[in-house]
């Protein structure tokens, strides 16, 4: 019972950190690409992350004081 609860909490934390840091972005992209365009090739992770990083370069977000 307690173990199950702790497991759920740990999974939740892992999920949150992966989402918040953008680590899960590639997985979502693959799922999205497979669903919407099943025939198109899927970018390998290295290329995907590079495109993503470069696209974000012009999106710098101001940080508040």
């Amino acid at each position, binding site marked *: 019972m307690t173990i199950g609860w702790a497991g759920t909490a740990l999974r939740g934390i892992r999920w*949150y950190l992966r989402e918040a840091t953008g680590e899960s972005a590639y997985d979502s992209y693959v799922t999205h690409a497979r669903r919407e365009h099943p025939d198109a090739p899927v970018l390998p992770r*290295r290329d995907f992350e590079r495109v*993503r990083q470069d696209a974000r*370069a012009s*999106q710098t977000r*101001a*940080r508040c*004081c």
Partner: protein
Amino acid sequence: MSSELRTDDRSGDQLADRPGGRSRIGQTIVWVLVAVVGATAWGVLALVRHERISALWLLAAALGSYAIAYRFYARFIVRRVLGVDDTRATPAERLENDIDFQPTDRRVLFGHHFAAIAGAGPLVGPVLAAQMGYLPGTIWIVAGVIFAGAVQDMVTLFFSMRRDGKSLGQMAREEIGPVGGAAALLAVFTIMIILLAVLALVVVNALAASPWGTFSIAMTIPIALLMGFYLRVLRPGRVMETTVIGVALLLLAIVAGGWVQESSWASAFTLSAKALVICLVVYGFFASVLPVWMLLAPRDYLSTFMKIGTIGLLAIGMLFTLPVLHNEAITKFATNGKGPVFAGSLFPFVFITIACGALSGFHSLIASGTTPKMIEKESQIRLIGYGGMLAESFVAISAMIAASVLDQGLYYAINAPAGVVGATAQTAATAVTNLGFPITPNALTAAAAQVQEKTLIARTGGAPTLAVGMSEIFSSAFGDTLKAYFYHFAIMFEALFILTTVDAGTRVGRFMLQDTLGNVWKPMARVSWWPGVWSTSAVVVGAWGYFLWTGVTNPLGGINQLFPLFGIANQLLAAVALAVCTTLLIKHDKLKYAWVTAIPLAWDTLVTLTASWQKIFSADPGLGFFAQRDRFQTALDKGTVLKPAKNIADMHAVVTNSTVDGVLSALFAGLIVIVLLDAVRVCIKAARTRGGLPTAEAPYVESHIVAPAGLIPTAEERRVLAGTGAGSGSGTRGAHPS
């Protein structure tokens, strides 16, 4: 199936309230209890005098008020005033592109938004405002956030979301007019420059003559470069393991700082304030022109983790130790306006000094632009906009507590400018004791030795005070032996995220400048044309570098002179945001609810224009910039040197700085008056037109995303989510009807 979650004007939480009368009674009891706890705490704060009270009462008063405000006032605004509609697709859903438009889980977006709005501001402002006592600042932090700050953030977020994430400047231009829009844009740019200069000044004051701090912060640059390389080349996309490595190295750098301080390297890392300014300016320039992945992005990861971690640790430390406040509820400086930390009396200067944490105009730049492009459901603006700001307000309360637990003699010795307290423990103890806060020279030396710093005297800017307060709280929770480490950890985390703000701010300022110049000459707007990039970066860095330099060299004390200017600038930006919001409410034919943003706007305008007026026209040379200029200029004409200036060059510096600061105050006030007058013109026109005026709102498109509105899904929302096959309260896309 998404229609089951439809929240028109008044369903929403009612779905949750409905099942059975019993839970309804239970809820009522809970809310009555929250109200009673909050009211009792406020009662204690209001009535107890001349007795030291526990920080518990501040925490209870704040948290109780936040809960009530979030439950009732925020819900009223979301439903009645704004009329959010969860059947309407958000820009994230309609324009999804995997880059900036991306439906993001509300809890994740809350984290992103909070990380972007919370910085050094809510930590520094309350520390300085503690010179008026803990009560005025606390009342403003809590009341300000509930009725002004959180409202501004949420309403700006809403209107930007309804306009595909347009920026505040764009909204001002489209909804008010070209004159108001241009004035708003210029205001945003100049305000950003002052903001960056003041924040950089806080870092300089924290690191000057501290080899420990300087070494730790210097090490963040190679650590960030390593992380950037790791993420780009070695293991693309593995952000979490990169961050773990980075944080471990960072902690090592803090510990190693202690070794460096004891070693022969110490002299290499003992830098004067002037040398640090040059380092920061050079660093700021390169951070702005280098690719984001190399330096800026990894630093951002590091600083976000450090920020959340430290704030969490501070909150836990406070709850564990429940420290006793040594500050008075209201000090004599609140009425006589002669405080050494900053000049001016309670009204208007408490409301200027505490900006972030109560009402911060800068947030409107974040609430318009990035966050609205990621929202899944309209009703989530309550959690993200209003809730995010409540969280920042709590950070401000923590800072107020950390500053108020200190011995007040120590507080003034740290925070009064060198012109007042001199440079030695002896002069500082005498000066502070004369102010009415007795302390011995030995106590000052001992306090510095405990955190292994050479001196704590005149370490203005808030960061050292907060670090001493935090190390006090932590060490009473975890033991005294680690006190120096806690101090340097706190300095490190503040400096780290201030520098991240400086990096990002320089870059954003550069984009703004490139954009504006691009209207005149096309190539300037191209982000890959290096002469444009380099020259605009140099202009932005040079502008804040100038103010930073004057802050460091000003004999009157840079924080004392520049912080009010920064506060006024930030609050005037809030006036722009609230003016845009009020105009839009009236244009949308919601005149009867326009008070929701119009009252905070009126208050904010009153405060900031009064403060501007005093800073420009006051005859008191301690307060008015031009009176100060006249006093020093007159002396200079006679060839005499006035304290705290030491020579003729110092005298010239004071005259120049006072003139520049006075002109800037006038410029800010002038720009805002233009924006307000233009907004009033549009408001009157809209109020006279039956049915409001047309706006640039994006047309209605039906939403197919199913996602809960609040942090914790209601029973009804869980049922609907289960029907779509989504787990763990996360959102999901409903089946396409086609």
